[in-house]
């Protein structure tokens, strides 16, 4: 207990309990204080533990803490154990740090909402679950956090449950996640069946002895775990819930559906890197799925008009990037991008929330424009986040994205095809993000007169978190500057105890940079991609600001393609037709035919038959006691006669 890791969990849990049990009995000030304070304290304690971690030598950088034995059942023993190693440290700091900023922002954003206390209760529960997920030292406890964040996601998407679309979106998210969780559980079963334990330490140590590398079992286990990851992290085929999740309050989208929860899948795969390294087939699947998702979501984002939907598809696309990194065995790069993405995507969402707040709920970019002047702080911070996500050199997104691009090319598991698609996606990302900027902040204001008068910059409570996140979006990448640019890539080195030397050895890093031409190649790639991204930004500028009529003409020329993209490849409709409809029809059949007609028919039929028979027989029951006695006597005499005369 020397590090008191449990305190990191205890603060948000206490906040959840206090706010939840005293719901509606506290005033708003106190609710905000408890809600934000608990997460802030968790962050501070995480920070303190992080420095403790840095103080010990690299090989000993893991703090374990078993609070109690949770399930003692024969050979199946699970502890409520916490673990703080470099990977957990990064996740804890991101979750509680970004979480704290978003809590503060929410104080301003949700100020007039009648469900204020409920909102902070859910949010604290979410932070608690997410921290459980990242601090767990075994798969089962991780699964508890995994389900907990799913529950909070459901509760917060459907926060405005009086709106039909919001409650539907909540249900969709929950059900789609359940499908993924099923795969996750099956994966755990295989691991437990083979290894006999779910502790990370035991599993990762035993796995190479128990599983044959590249064998069926390890491939199946890792694939099933990946199914869980596709559900939580919104990858093909289970990504459909994330865009709908934008029905929730915008800070929720920022915290849960951009910065933290959706990255749980990436975290889980990075955590299980030992297993994934043993299953090259799975790695290939992960890379391909990530790649396909990144491209598909980016193309959809090109045509959407809802500001939050563009960001939602962008999130799906960026998550695809992280999976590409994991798929080419560059787990550290994936986590690096996870961190920088948490900064700039949270900022983008909060900025979008600020815009929506100013426009009194308007989310359609066609009715925005010209917001640069009235909303200076929002605009500047938003611009930095956009530059970061587009991959402009010097900002955080550049380093992490470039790392992934380079590794997808140079890694033993990478391939030029994946690299090319990832690069193309990066161009699309730059294009649609600047489309968003130009439509929202530049050009002529397109909102109605009434809304124009109400335009105002958001209160301090909201802009301060924006500024802090903007700073993080800029400097957040500096911890991982690659060797070619003279950096030390400290981030990757920091994660080495978890990810193993293997990743760095095989992918770029020391081994490859020592060879001269690879440094040159990496530099050429870097410069090339930056130039292409600048071109994409110029294209967005040309099409959406300078020469607006061209867009219409292109749209007409490619109306078929545009329609497909605008309707998101009709994926929702396809799922509806091949999965949801048959399920509903099947259920209707089971209900109307099997249940009502067959099962109820049998039960009611038996009852009716008995009733029919009894209606004749019951004449014997006269209710007259003397009759009964006579019959009784007659029976006794007959019995007696039988025994005597026998």
């Amino acid at each position, binding site marked *: 207990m020397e590090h008191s890791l449990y305190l990191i969990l205890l603060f948000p849990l206490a906040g959840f309990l206090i706010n939840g049990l005293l719901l509606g009995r506290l005033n708003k000030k106190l609710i905000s204080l408890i809600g934000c304070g608990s997460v802030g304290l968790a962050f501070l304690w995480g920070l303190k533990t992080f420095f403790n971690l840095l103080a010990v030598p690299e090989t000993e950088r893991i703090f374990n803490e078993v609070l109690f034995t949770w399930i003692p059942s024969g050979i199946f023993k699970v502890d409520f154990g916490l673990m703080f190693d470099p990977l957990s440290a990064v996740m804890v700091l991101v979750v509680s740090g970004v979480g704290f900023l978003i809590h503060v922002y929410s104080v301003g954003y949700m100020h007039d909402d009648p469900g204020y206390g409920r909102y902070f209760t859910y949010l604290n529960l979410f932070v608690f679950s997410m921290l459980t997920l990242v601090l767990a030292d075994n798969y089962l406890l991780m699964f508890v956090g995994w389900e907990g964040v799913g529950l909070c996601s459901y509760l917060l998407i459907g926060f405005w449950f009086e709106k039909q679309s919001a409650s539907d979106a909540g249900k969709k998210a929950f059900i789609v996640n359940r499908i993924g969780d099923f795969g996750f559980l099956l994966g755990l079963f295989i691991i437990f069946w083979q290894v006999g334990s779910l502790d990370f330490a035991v599993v990762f140590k035993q796995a190479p002895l128990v599983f044959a590398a590249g064998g069926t079992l390890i491939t199946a286990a890792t694939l099933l775990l990946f199914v869980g990851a596709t559900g939580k992290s919104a990858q093909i085929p289970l990504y459909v819930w994330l865009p709908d999740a934008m029905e929730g309050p915008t800070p929720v989208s920022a915290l849960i559906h951009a910065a933290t929860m959706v990255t749980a899948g990436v975290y889980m795969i990075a955590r299980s890197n030992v297993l994934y390294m043993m299953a090259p087939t799975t790695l290939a699947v992960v890379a391909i799925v990530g790649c396909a998702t990144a491209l598909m979501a980016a193309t959809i984002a090109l045509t959407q008009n809802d500001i939050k939907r563009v960001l939602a598809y962008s999130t799906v696309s960026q998550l695809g990037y992280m999976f590409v990194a994991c798929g080419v065995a560059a787990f550290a790069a994936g986590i690096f991008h996870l961190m920088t993405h948490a900064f700039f995507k949270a900022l983008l969402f909060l900025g979008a929330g600020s815009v929506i707040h100013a426009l009194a709920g308007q989310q359609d970019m066609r009715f925005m424009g010209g917001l640069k002047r009235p909303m200076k702080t929002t605009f500047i911070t938003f611009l930095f986040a956009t530059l970061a996500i587009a991959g402009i050199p010097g900002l955080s997104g550049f380093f992490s994205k470039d790392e992934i691009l380079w590794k997808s090319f140079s890694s033993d598991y990478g391939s030029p095809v994946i690299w090319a698609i990832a690069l193309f996606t990066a161009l699309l990302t730059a294009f649609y993000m600047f489309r968003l900027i130009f439509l929202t902040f530049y050009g002529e204001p397109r909102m109605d007169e009434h809304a124009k008068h109400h335009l105002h910059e958001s209160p301090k409570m909201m802009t301060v978190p924006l500024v802090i996140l903007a700073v993080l979006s800029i400097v957040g990448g500096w911890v991982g500057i690659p060797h070619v640019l003279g950096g030390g890539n400290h981030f990757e080195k920091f994660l080495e105890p978890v990810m193993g030397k293997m990743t760095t050895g095989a992918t770029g890093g020391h081994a490859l940079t020592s060879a001269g031409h690879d440094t040159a190649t990496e530099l050429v790639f870097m410069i090339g991609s930056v130039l292409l991204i600048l071109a994409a930004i110029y294209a967005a500028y040309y099409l959406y600001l300078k020469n607006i009529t061209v867009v219409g003409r292109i749209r007409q020329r490619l109306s078929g393609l545009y329609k497909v993209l605008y309707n998101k490849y009709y994926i929702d409709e396809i799922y509806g037709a091949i999965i949801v409809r048959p399920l509903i029809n099947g259920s209707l059949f089971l209900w109307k035919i099997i249940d009502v007609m067959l099962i109820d028919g049998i039960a009611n039929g038996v009852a009716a038959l008995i009733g029919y028979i009894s209606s004749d027989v019951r004449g014997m029951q*006269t*209710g*007259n006691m*003397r009759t009964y*006695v006579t019959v009784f*006597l007659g029976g006794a005499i007959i019995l007696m006669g039988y025994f005597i005369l026998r």
Partner: protein
Amino acid sequence: MIPITHYLILSAMLFAIGVTGVIISRNLIIMFMSIEVMLNAANLAIIAFSRSLNLMDGHVFVFLVMAVAAAEAAVGLAIIINLFRNRESINADTFSLMKR
């Protein structure tokens, strides 16, 4: 010494009287008394056998039956009193609720 058959005949007669009483009477009290007669007829038969066979078992049985009869009398009379309070009648034929 009186032979056992005499006792048995008396017992059978008492029993028959009891049965007849239960069947033909409508008055609950009479029916109740008839049941007591039947019980005592049985007691008599048991005690007669016990005496003629020189066994003590019968005595024990009879004590048991008497104890049960006493308890049954208490409960039965309580039921009858309650029935009377509710229905102002102790006519067995009026209590035929099971027949609709």
